């Protein structure tokens, strides 16, 4: 079988924009790949997202402009990618975003090509012979597995968002290849209608993806008004430490911590919270934690990805402004 000495990335496009995971994958592949890095982009006929992708410096961009394909039918997309690969030969590897789209499309293509796929990878590296070593979590992130696909090509993987950093790279050599004549047979079984998901804030802190948490260091009437404005801006839900449940408007359902609720937001912003163990017991599943506190030795900082030493209200106002 004809193998193509390239490593491929599938560009994920949401709502006419390239999902940043694609840039993260390009930067990572540029770092680890000896072979040329190619991005496969499927976009609407009037779009030119390849221009955005170029800024991250892949060696090649294959652009398929097709208004049917962008509807997002996995079967149609599998057919298209399979046809493309039939023309070009099988690349050494082909990686996708571990998003709903990537995790639905990649395995179908895997089955079509009868090769191996590793889902939801947290790390990737190549060995000298081109073997892609894929590290994936299992058992809900309690175990890490290293998986390889020794004898089949492409070696396929989906990769989790935000594990690699995206860096712009000036690559004057980036080639753009337009594929226009790809035949797409419509899947008549499914009718898909899509609309943007309104950014709603969740009802309860246990389900919230974003939380602004306030503690005793940020509890005046004015502080609260500011924190709430910030929360609105972020589509976040307000959480509190236990002392604030003394206030009329908060109760145990708003309280984070051991005797309150455990939370698992993508981002948690702590304003004026010291970080008592009973509080931090409830935040261990928060993904990114930002904390503001006047005390440079506040225990909460040890639990934080980013911290600000200073007045929480000023920080909250500045943050609101930065989000304008």
């Amino acid at each position, binding site marked *: 079988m004809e193998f193509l000495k390239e490593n491929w990335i599938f560009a994920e496009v*949401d709502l006419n924009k390239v999902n940043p995971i694609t840039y993260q994958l390009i930067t990572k592949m540029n770092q680890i790949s000896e072979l040329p890095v190619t991005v496969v982009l499927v976009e609407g006929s009037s779009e030119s997202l390849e221009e955005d992708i170029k800024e991250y410096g892949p060696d090649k961009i294959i652009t398929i402009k097709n208004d049917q394909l962008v509807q997002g039918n996995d079967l149609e997309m599998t057919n298209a990618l399979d046809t493309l690969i039939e023309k070009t030969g099988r690349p050494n590897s082909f990686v996708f975003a571990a998003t709903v789209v990537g995790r639905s499309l990649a395995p179908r293509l895997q089955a079509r090509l009868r090769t191996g*796929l590793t889902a939801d990878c947290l790390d990737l590296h190549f060995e000298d012979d081109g073997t892609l070593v894929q590290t994936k979590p299992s058992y809900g992130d309690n175990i890490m597995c290293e998986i390889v696909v020794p004898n089949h090509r492409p070696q396929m993987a989906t990769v989790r968002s935000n594990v690699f950093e995206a860096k712009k790279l000036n690559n004057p050599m980036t080639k753009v290849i337009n594929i226009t004549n790809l035949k797409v047979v419509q899947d008549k079984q499914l009718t898909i209608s899509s*609309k943007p998901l309104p950014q709603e804030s969740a009802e309860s802190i246990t389900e919230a993806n974003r939380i602004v948490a306030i503690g005793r260091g940020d509890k005046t009437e004015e502080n609260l008004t500011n924190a709430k404005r910030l929360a609105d801006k972020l589509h976040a839900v307000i959480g509190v430490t236990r002392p604030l449940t003394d206030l009329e408007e908060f109760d145990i359902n708003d309280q984070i911590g051991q005797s309150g609720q455990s939370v698992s937001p993508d981002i948690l912003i702590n304003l004026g919270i010291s970080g008592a163990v009973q509080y931090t017991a409830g935040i261990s599943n928060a993904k990114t934690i930002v904390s503001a506190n006047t005390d440079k030795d506040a225990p909460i900082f040890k639990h934080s990805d980013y911290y600000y030493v200073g007045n929480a209200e000023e920080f909250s106002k500045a943050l609101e402004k930065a989000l304008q």
Partner: protein
Amino acid sequence: MKIVVGIKQVPETTNVKINEKTKNIDRRGISGVINQYDRHALEAAFEIKAKTNAEVIVMTMGPDDFVVSLQEALALGADSAVLLSDRAFAGADTLATGYVLSEAIKKIGDVDLVLLGQQSVDADTGQMGPIISEFLDISQVTYASKLDVEEGGLRIKRYLENIEQDITAKLPVLVTVTDQANDPKYVNIVEIAKSFEKEVTTWHASDLNLDADRVGQAGSPSVVRSISSPKEVVKDNYKLPDNPQDAADELVKILKDKNILVEDK
């Protein structure tokens, strides 16, 4: 309507550790349960059954003790069960597993709807749905958050990161189900004994029309090279600048670069 629900038996807790001595996953004292998402797939099947009188066949590929999960599914309301068990199936990756499952579905014949969980909680791949759809050559809808039967097919809600999809699907189709889709019931204690009146059929490799090169370890392109414990996630503890606005601006930039904050649309 004929529905096949694929279920997998998984450890009751994913809180497993690697045994220092054996270098393998320590499963002492951990018993099996039906994969949580598969309970939602089963419940979806039962809801359809309640409306359309559909026949629900539950199926699993795995060692003989997976029969407990099949029996549990029967007690929950499935009509019959199929266990796919054979030494030859051992060591299968997703591709080889999907192949055997799809051949078994073909053998059952005239299946209108295949329902699976969105993913297993042990291997966490979520690949089975698309692979089986491909081998059956039917359309797929993954990560369904809501399913309703309607004339000639299904109506499904599905959520991508920033998009909501409303999908109508004609039969046959394969759907994988999220935990948003419904509230699975518990097994009724008295129904357990009654479920033994229903049948569990076991099929071995020889009962299916299989290409020997495509099953088990031999048919698996993926190889697990090693397993390890995750490294403790150490928080970055990055100190933001002292000036509040500088701090806020830098933070917002970082969060946007990392796609944690998506710019407002």
